[in-house]
């Protein structure tokens, strides 16, 4: 994997704002991510995290400000446009279709075909084989590729969405709260995949409102609060307590003492893997 220059961000938002009717969802927010870097986007519920990454994945257009890829300004006309440029997003809540099989989900929108003309058809054999291989590589054994995704656990579904994004040659991987519905162990699996994607040179934007998940994997932390930027920090520049108070959750620190123990455990199992 060749990284042209790690000093130019692969993807960035420059001073973007977004209005929904009268609600100012975002004001003057900037964010950037480089190849081989994980930028954790932190903020409380309703802070505008999803709105920001929806602009970066072609769902919304910014009302003001610009987007840039490799330093060049771009306009994203649709999610498909963003995908073609190598921006793969695993959206919050709608990562996969539960009533469809693993391989049908894996190749949705990118189905391989064989044959020509009216006989051009979905190459199910290839789809099954590749989906199985990719899931195997990422640590999930698929019993039957016809198995419905609804039968998989939440962690496995997130993993499927991440594996799919990586397989289709993404340069930027955007994950919107992939761990919010998961337990500690399953979260650790997802965090491990984030580190793996980083090691392969992808630029990763990882959204969470859970600081314990962000700290072990983030190179950079971008904090949103009520639609505004509350700062950007490098790894090591900031502590858990500082991040929490910036996000507006400082008062709940007491309750965190116990959760911190879990964090250390999760961190240890990450290092082991």
């Amino acid at each position: 994997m060749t990284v042209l220059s790690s000093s130019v961000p692969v993807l960035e938002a420059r001073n973007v704002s977004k209005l929904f009717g009268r609600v100012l969802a975002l004001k003057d927010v900037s964010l950037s991510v480089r190849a081989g870097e994980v930028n954790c986007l932190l903020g409380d519920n309703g802070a505008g995290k999803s709105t920001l990454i929806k602009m970066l994945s072609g769902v919304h257009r910014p009302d003001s400000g610009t987007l840039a890829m490799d330093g060049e300004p771009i306009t994203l006309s649709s999610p498909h446009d963003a995908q073609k440029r190598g921006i793969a997003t695993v959206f919050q809540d709608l990562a996969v279709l539960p009533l469809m099989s693993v391989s049908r989900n894996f190749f949705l929108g990118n189905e391989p075909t064989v044959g020509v003309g009216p006989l051009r058809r979905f190459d199910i054999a290839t789809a099954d084989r590749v989906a199985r291989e990719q899931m195997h590589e990422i640590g999930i054994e698929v019993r039957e590729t016809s198995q419905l995704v609804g039968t998989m656990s939440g962690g496995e579904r997130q993993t499927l969405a991440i594996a799919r994004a990586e397989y289709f040659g993404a340069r930027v991987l955007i994950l919107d709260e992939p761990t919010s519905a998961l337990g500690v162990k399953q979260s650790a699996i997802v965090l491990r995949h984030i580190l793996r994607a980083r090691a392969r040179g992808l630029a990763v934007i990882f959204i969470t409102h859970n600081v314990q998940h962000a700290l072990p994997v983030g190179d950079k932390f971008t904090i949103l609060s009520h639609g505004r930027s509350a700062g950007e920090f490098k790894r090591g520049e900031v502590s858990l307590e500082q991040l929490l108070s910036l996000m507006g959750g400082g008062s709940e620190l007491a309750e965190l003492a116990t959760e911190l123990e879990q964090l250390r455990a999760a961190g240890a199992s990450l290092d082991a893997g």
Partner: protein
Amino acid sequence: MTVDATPSEAQRIRRISPWRTFLTRPEFGSIIGAVFIFTLFWALTGFTVGKGFMSWQGFAAYIEVTAQVGILGATVSLLMIAGEFDLSVGSMVGAAGLILAMCVSTYGLPVWLGLLITFAFALAIGWINGYLVVRTGLPSFIVTLGTLYMLRGAGLALTRMATNGLTIVSGVNTSTAGDPLAWLFNGTIISIGGGDFKTELVWWIVVVLVSTWVLLRTRFGNWIFAVGGNKDASRSMGVPVSRVKILLFMATALSAAIFACIQVLSFGTADVLRGTGKEFEAIITAVIGGTLLTGGYGSALGSAFGAFVLGVTQLGIYFVPGFNSDWYAFVLGLLLLVAAMLNNWILRRASGARS
């Protein structure tokens, strides 16, 4: 991160038996249902063979009904899997039939041109249905309920104007006799034991096979499932949601036109009110065939068994002593309820059976 075991090894260990896979297929219930209904009516007619229910004539009679509703059921299933309804298919049958009859009988156009105009009309209305649904975001239930009444009303009014007050156009046979294209819709393929099997049987088989092939073996089919499962997720994965829906509305309208051509060219007359209620029979066919009312899951092949259940029930009732066709609607409603509950159960097994 490398793992030593090859994927093919893992897959050999964890094979599920084909029988269990079959049990979780969406069409499983409809196959059981078809066998059950057939046996039930045979039993109710005293297990007689050679006359009545279990005769070539009886068989030909319910295959005719089966084939006709099955042509609608297959495309309606695809549309329902994509999460939409088309209530206008019934009045489309009436409207398309009128257009064909007026073309060849009232205006004396050649059959090929009449067919062309009929199919073009159906595709146009189907496109309008689809366009309105994707553009307005209104439920297709409402949009096609609107087109149902508009087609029927306009059909009645315009036919009366063109035929001096009648709503039935007759005399189609005299203009189509001996026409090879007409034979495609009303020809008899084979007669066995007094039962005539007609070309509609072939139309049905073709429509079901093409629908099944499209659904299970093409990219478009993958999109049909996805669009019905979650429209927004599909769009974010690059699926052309609007195009999928519009094309499916065109497919249901087209199948209604095929149905209309079969009826008009077989009876020699067209009636605006023909096809009334077929929209619901098509939906029931789809549901018995294992398609979810909420979209995202289902089978076009299953609709063939669903159509068979409908055909056998509708005709079978005549053969049962002491019953008459009044009971058809009752049994149909009952079947719908049972099928919907069975579908839920199968779906729970398919998406919950984790082992």
